């Protein structure tokens, strides 16, 4: 059912919308952001180092989220294609004018924010695919031609981001897009074959290593090596993961106390305020702290799932669960990475890590979820 088939009379108007926001979700987001600010205060030494700018950033994006939530969801549906094309253009642009960081061209420096277009794409792709399946008659969903088109929508940004090169983000875009297609109801057989193909690709990647045809850059291969056995190079490539695991492990059950983590306070942890901030949390607040954050994240997912189920139209359902998937991938990949379950790929811990792009994009995404929630039809027939 497309939302156009519903009467919208029952939907709240004006400032009354605020009362109909999903407040539970909002409170959970505030909780996560607070944890982030506390941890940034801990690793920064002073409040003004990282915590304060992060707080301001959260307030700005929070307002932005509310503003997005006020706008009816059908407006955003109509904007989907534009959002996607906008993000795609930026990704192309970043290849020409972007700054190089860590051996990859990833962001455009706008002065007040370092914009990472590939992050925008994580939400834009969800919007584009959700809109696509909203328009597409359900009977055609699994027809090869109509499967090919969303595959193109996914493949284009994936390949562009891979060329930057940013393996992590491109995989996340791929998985997010695939998830939306899966939720939309594309036939199982497609996914099975893609999965098999994926295994084939991984095989190919390792087989071509060292030849002229190798598919990944050397540093990416090395990251995989380090992941498989970090102890081989404890001061070089494996340093990040080894120190991160030491920090986590030494936290124990209840942690070493706020600002008492030796690994993070004494700078043994690399990137302690960005990608590796979870280790600081786990070191200073222990298993209890780490599991609490994970629980909050899972609660956010749960509320998203409920919102998706309550939504009546396909666009809203797909949008909410797609963005939830993006959010899940953020924290799942980040945590796996710092716990040594995955190669270090440079994914921040959502709403906790220092940095603007991810927060901007995620808060925009939650704005869309709220919009879908507020503007959902209250009664069917």
């Amino acid at each position, binding site marked *: 059912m497309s939302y156009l088939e519903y009467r919208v009379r029952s939907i709240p108007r004006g400032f009354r919308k605020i009362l109909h926001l999903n407040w539970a979700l909002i409170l959970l987001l505030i909780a996560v952001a607070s944890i982030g600010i506390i941890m940034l205060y801990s690793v920064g030494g002073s409040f003004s180092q990282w915590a304060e700018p992060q707080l301001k950033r959260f307030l700005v994006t929070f307002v932005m989220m509310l503003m997005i939530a006020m706008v009816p969801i059908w407006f955003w549906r109509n904007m989907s294609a534009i959002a996607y094309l906008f993000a795609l253009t930026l990704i192309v642009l970043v290849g020409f004018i972007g700054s190089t960081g860590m051996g990859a061209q990833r962001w455009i420096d706008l002065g007040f924010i370092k914009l990472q277009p590939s992050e925008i794409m994580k939400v834009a792709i969800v919007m584009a695919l959700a809109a696509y399946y909203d328009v597409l008659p359900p009977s055609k969903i699994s027809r090869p031609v109509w499967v090919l088109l969303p595959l193109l929508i996914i493949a284009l940004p994936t390949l562009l981001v891979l060329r930057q090169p940013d393996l992590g983000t491109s995989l996340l875009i791929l998985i997010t897009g695939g998830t939306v297609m899966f939720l939309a*109801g594309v036939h199982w057989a497609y996914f099975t074959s893609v999965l098999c193909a994926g295994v084939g690709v991984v095989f190919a990647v390792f087989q071509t290593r060292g030849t002229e045809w190798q598919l990944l850059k050397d540093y990416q291969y090395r990251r995989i090596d380090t992941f498989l056995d970090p102890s081989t190079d404890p001061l070089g490539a494996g340093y990040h993961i080894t*120190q991160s695991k030491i920090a*986590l*492990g030494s936290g124990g059950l209840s942690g070493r106390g706020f600002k008492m983590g*030796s690994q993070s306070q004494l700078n043994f942890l690399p990137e302690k305020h960005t990608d590796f901030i979870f280790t600081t949390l*786990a070191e200073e607040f222990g298993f209890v702290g780490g599991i609490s954050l994970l629980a909050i994240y899972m609660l956010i997912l749960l509320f998203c799932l409920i919102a*998706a*189920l309550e939504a009546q139209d396909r666009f809203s359902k797909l949008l909410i669960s797609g963005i939830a*998937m993006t959010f*899940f991938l953020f924290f799942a990949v980040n945590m796996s990475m710092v716990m040594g379950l995955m190669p270090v790929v440079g994914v921040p811990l959502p709403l906790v890590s220092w940095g603007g792009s991810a927060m901007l994009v995620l808060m925009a995404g939650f704005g869309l979820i709220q919009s879908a929630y507020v503007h959902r039809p209250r009664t069917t027939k």
Partner: protein
Amino acid sequence: MNKSENHDHRISNRMTRRAAVVGLLQLGFAGALALRMRNLQIEEAEQFRLLAEENRINVRLISPSRGEIYDRNGIILARNEPSYRITLIEEDAGDVERVLGKLAQLVPMSSEDLERTYAELDRNPSFLPVTVVDRVTWEDVSRVAINTPVLPGITPEVGLSRYYPLADNFTHVVGYVGPVSTRDLERHQNPDPLLKIPRFQIGKSRLEASFEDQLRGRAGTRQVEVNATGRIMRELRRSSGEAGENVQLTVDAALQCYVQARLGEESASAVVMDCKSGEILAMTSTPSYDPNKFVRGISHTDYNALLEDERKPLVSKALQGIYPPGSTFKMITAIAALESGLINEKTKVYCPGHLEISGKKKYCWKRGGHGQVNLEKSLRESCDVYYYEVALKVGIKKIAEVARRYGLGIEHDLGLEVEAAGLIPSKEWKKRTKGMDWLIGDTANASIGQGDVLTSPLQLAVMTARIATGKDIKPVLLNSNSNGGGQLPTTDLEDDPARLKAVRQAMFNVSNKRNGTAYKSRLIKDKFRMAGKTGTSQVFSISEAERKKGITSNEDREWNRRDHALFVCYAPFDDPKVAVSVVVEHGGGGSKTAAPIARDIALFALSDGECPLDAYPVKDREHIAEQKEMLAKILPDLSSNKNVEI
């Protein structure tokens, strides 16, 4: 419509189903994360905690203070002194060049210092202190301290450095310390981590080197918290370690200094021993050098000067110097002869001034001859022919056996590592080393302490003490407090005390009878009466070429071709307390050069440094008084140097 609704419913259901699948996958993944967290943080927490501590905690060593060295009365021979250095921390200094420029105006700095400082600054992280100048004076430190406001990053630091207050007087006993060299490190299988501390000093010679283990002490540790770049954040724990053990010597600093002064500029050595306990009271060697120079790092020119000096200041002659004992060896030959039973003390030998051995004439020092000579006269007048005759009867084997029993040709373990064993020749030795057969001429030479016989001043002192007491006296250098009690020897060296009695009486006559070779160097007070023996050992016999030039006596020859002068004695005669041996290299005659020195030393030791003038024969007193005054000027004041705790 109904059909479409059904279709819609089916699609909606499918979406819900798939959302559930995705949700379950996510939940499963989150579960895996939680399990991993549990695994790291609870099951392996202990191990990771350890690793984190290893990261965080860095153990720094604190050097222990080195044990001090005292003389028998607690006078300090080696102690630790604060030494000041100026350090610079680059990150606090800001403009390093400007700060160093200012510092150079306050503290003397060489261009070498500056170069080294810049090199070290480049090498080290900017938060580590770098030593700019070492061993500055207290005045320099206070100047720097006053000017701290304009010298950011500059800190005066204090460390401990070895100091030898009695300077060159004890160099040959105590030795000195110096920085650890790579050779020192290689010598040990598992070197003490202390040795790797920059600026750490270890014993390099003599006592400082051989007692290194006791003196060094054990390192303390300081556990500090460091961050990833190694900067010290705070100190966690400190264990102070153990200071090195103090060592007390049997040496009497006052006597030692006196002996060094009395030997003066001569290339000489003297050993003073307590006759009964074997305690070394003084063990000297001249010329000496200031060990403090070595601690600070001696300059090349100074070191080369020491190396090239023909009087060999670097050699500890009391232990390392080996000389033909000359006539001081005659007691050994006499004892050997008495023991063999081939002669007794009354046996007479006629001395015409020479003896023909295998067709070659061997001369007595007195060309005119001594006439009829018995044991007493042979020692008193030091007749050579008597000993040639006696030795030919007794044989080298017996003489060598007695020599070793009396402490010659063997090592006495004082623990100083450099002791020379000397040499008492034997037939086997000559065959082995020279490939030649022993000749009876060799026995004759050995009988008067010439030829191949070589002894050190320490050995001569031991021999004298053993003759004086008849006991198996062993020399000791460490005070009984520190070495666990000096055991008084009980082994008698002779089964018949009459033999030694005869020898002692003869030695007494050497110093106290008108014809005695050392009669001129006698002490006339009964409580100081000496028994001694002179020795003049030939280094080179006067050659034909020299005779042609008209050189007939020692004084006319070049210094290093002259004879060595020796004298051994003990005193007082009736109750021996000290044994003294003196060797003056190229000093000429024993009676003329060595005996007066030995007399002064013995008197000083017996009178506790008082040296009463009335102990000397009347005609010597004036000259002795002058000498006393002169020595008083150069003797160091020991009263300020005493450790009150001992």
